[in-house]
């Protein structure tokens, strides 16, 4: 057991997987001697050499296309997209191509590749270093999308992602990198893709969240407890496939759902969670399916005042809890 930050857990897991399996390689911008702009690959080039830790040209489409080609030829590439905002040029290789390799070849070819994508805001990143980009990936059959919020989950899910025989989009919330610490077992373990987890049990309502918002939700739940409201907090952890049963079980039990999300609400993970609840929990619901997210403007202003106003916060979540609990 070692106390680690999220970024430390990520780094240690990549290192462990590279030691475990020589077909695991890392490629991306500045992943070599620089160790990645967030230091997720710090030191790896010293241990594994330039062959397995590849500094690529600045060209995301090819980073992902090359990873895909290497994956179908025996490697297990981990591609790093430097910031989520720069994954758009690679959509064609990921959503268009990688997602359909197994299906389109009727199972003859597979693409065991992991794409690490640092995403999210609250880091003074402005419009182009703050984006959440999960929607399209989570929509696409053939992809798995993982978004751990704690160092423990980051390690277990990253190990699973790397060992999975299909493409996995691995989302790391930038704000959690150094902010969130936790105990991480030193031994090898994996966490299955597709399993949510109740991070805090409660009885009056369920908050469903992932990424940074999980932590804000937990804080808000603590504050609500002081007011006598018992809030359950469900961490989605995987965004595709969603753990429908866990969502339905919790919301059916508490009767009320608040979905909290940093990403724009329209046509998003929060929409899908609400749709699942609206279809499968209808007869158990005691209140409207409620969502809390940012305003429908481009995420998110560079101005610190505006950025703070943009982001959901523990206080805003508490207000939504209070309102929903009163219904």
């Amino acid at each position, binding site marked *: 057991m070692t106390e680690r930050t999220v970024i430390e857990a990520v780094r240690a897991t990549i290192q462990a997987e590279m030691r475990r*399996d020589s077909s695991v*390689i890392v490629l991306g911008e500045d992943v070599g001697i620089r160790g990645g702009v967030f230091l997720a690959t710090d030191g790896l080039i010293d241990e594994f050499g330039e*062959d*397995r830790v590849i500094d*690529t*040209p600045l*060209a995301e*489409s*090819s980073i*992902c*296309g*090359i*990873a*895909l*080609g*290497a*994956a*179908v*030829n*025996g*490697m*297990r*590439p981990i591609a790093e997209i430097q910031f989520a905002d720069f994954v758009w*040029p690679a959509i*064609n*290789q990921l959503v*268009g*191509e990688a997602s*359909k*390799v*197994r*299906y*389109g*070849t*009727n*199972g*003859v*070819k*597979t693409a*065991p590749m992991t794409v690490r994508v640092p995403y999210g805001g609250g880091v003074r990143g402005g419009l182009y270093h703050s984006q959440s980009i999960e929607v399209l990936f989570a929509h696409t*059959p*053939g992809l*798995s999308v993982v978004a751990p919020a704690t160092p423990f989950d980051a390690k277990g899910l990253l190990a*699973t992602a790397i*060992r*999975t*025989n*299909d493409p996995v989009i691995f989302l790391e919330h930038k704000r959690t990198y150094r902010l969130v610490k936790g105990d991480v077992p030193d031994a090898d373990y*994996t966490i*299955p*893709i597709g399993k949510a987890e109740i991070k805090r049990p409660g009885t009056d309502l369920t908050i469903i969240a992932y990424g940074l918002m999980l932590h804000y939700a937990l804080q808000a739940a603590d504050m609500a407890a002081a007011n006598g409201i018992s809030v359950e907090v469900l961490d989605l952890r995987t965004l595709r496939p969603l753990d429908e049963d866990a969502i339905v079980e919790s919301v059916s039990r508490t009767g009320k759902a608040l979905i909290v999300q940093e990403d724009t609400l329209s046509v998003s993970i929060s929409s899908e969670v609400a749709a699942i609840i609206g279809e499968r929990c209808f007869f158990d619901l005691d209140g409207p399916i409620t969502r809390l997210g940012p305003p429908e403007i481009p995420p998110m202003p560079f101005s610190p005042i505006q950025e703070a106003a943009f982001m959901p916060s523990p206080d805003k979540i508490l207000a939504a809890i209070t309102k929903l609990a009163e219904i």
Partner: protein
Amino acid sequence: MVLSRHLDERVWLLNRQGKAAIAASAQGHEAAQLACIEATDPSKDHYLIYYRQFAAMMALGTEPEEMLRGFLAKTDDPMSGARQFPLHGAHPRVDLFNFSNVIATQLPQAAGVALADKLKGSDAVTVVFFGDGASSQGDTHEAMNFAGIHKLPVIFFCENNRYAISVPLEKQMGVESVASRAVGYGFPGVQVDGTDVGAVYEVTNVAIERARAGDGPTLIEASVERLLPHTTDDDHTRYRSSEDIVQMLNRDPIRILAELLKRRGQLTDSGDEEIHALAKKRVNLATDTVDAEPYPSVESMFDHVIDSSGGHS
């Protein structure tokens, strides 16, 4: 080559009969494709093809029946089980694949395949086929750039038929030749007459040796003719002048090769006729066989979305 041509013609007929939904033809590209493949080693090399690689697929040992199953969307389509357009998917016996219809995506993928071989210490070569149209895509640039940096064992084989559907070369690029771009990536670019089997074989052979020796990529640009419209959905008289069409027909590689062999005394008229007759027979046989075969079941469409084993290595 002749068999490929006859089967290709049959596929268009099957389209006209409403049996094949869509077809793109290799007619005019056959010499380039066959001669290129001839210089490679199918037991270890990799082939990333595109939809016009009809002749290449046959040169790599695909049986006429197998080809037809793709066009007729039969259950035993070897490439994708009728999930995809003909020629899309992956081959069961040689490492030939074509994941999508999306132009130029295969070039970075080919660089990745070649990178893996380099890391594994294999001397396999990756051949990636594409059209002049594909040369405009960003992916083509990124792939060549990466392959140049790492001196990857990959051959970029461009079949330049001067058209991307209806868009002529002069609207696709401000230069005359795709091969001229290779200097910007630090490896050789060669133009070759794609109707000349000997010439194509020669340049490919040099490129293969270079790649196997670890000296890096080559860009080969084979000038060919697209003898038919872009696909069965197209009508090229809308955009090609009649002079262009007449000139193009003069560059039919099968006629060129037959005439050469006849001039050299290596082929007689009757020998030629016999080859064609045999090919036709083979095509008829294959058509009858495949016509009678079943279509895929509905249930099978749910297979292979992701690893059903849970997907762990």
